[in-house]
């Protein structure tokens, strides 16, 4: 299980491959890997977004990400999980977040991946500031899903 904040661009597929390569002890055990990648769009809420800054609360953010993943692992039989989240300045098409979970069964993998993303959006202390043609603005709230 790994939770990481990154202050520079990362390639989710490279990270995923690298992490999965360390899971040799689980070979043959996981039948299902569910993955979500959040990527920066160049539009939001009716405006073109040129750049975005992701602020966080050092210490609290990591603690809550950890707790969210642990809660998912209590609810579903997970074999492993990986969460990477960007902070700092992002450009459109930059990955924001990667969530991956490994399980024997697809139902657990899908549900846990979804739960981690929803909890992360609802509770992990991150804040987005967008640069638009009309100047900077803070994103007021996440859309519930």
């Amino acid at each position, binding site marked *: 299980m790994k939770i990481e904040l990154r202050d520079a661009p990362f390639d989710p597929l490279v990270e995923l491959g690298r992490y999965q390569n360390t899971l040799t002890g689980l070979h043959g055990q996981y039948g299902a890997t569910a993955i979500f990648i*959040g990527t920066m769009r160049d539009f939001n809420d009716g405006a073109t977004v040129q750049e975005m800054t*992701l*602020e*966080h*609360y050092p*210490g*609290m953010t990591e*603690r809550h990400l950890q707790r969210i993943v642990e809660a998912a692992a209590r609810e579903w039989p997970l074999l492993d999980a990986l969460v990477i*989240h960007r902070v700092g300045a992002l450009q459109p098409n930059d990955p*924001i*977040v990667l969530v991956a979970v490994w399980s024997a069964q697809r139902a657990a993998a899908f549900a846990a991946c979804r739960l981690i*993303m929803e909890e*992360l*959006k*609802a*509770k*992990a*202390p*991150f*804040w*987005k*500031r967008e640069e638009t043609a009309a100047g900077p603005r*803070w*994103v*007021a*709230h*996440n859309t519930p899903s």
Partner: protein
Amino acid sequence: MSIDIKYFASLRDRLGRAEDRLDAATELTVAEVWAALWLDRPLPPNTLTAVNMEYAELTQRVRDGDEVAFFPPVTGG
């Protein structure tokens, strides 16, 4: 009693600072910490609060050395 206070994101921008320190003679709740610092300026609606990096209610008591944070709804992911 000394309390560290942190502000984040739009709230920090609006207040014009990221941190405060409060020396209080008596035990305070989170709401009283805000009131002690900002007097009659009400806590903006939807502001979230944390004590020592755990989400906290406004009625939670703050102890010496605690870190209290005020911030807007989170928008990560």
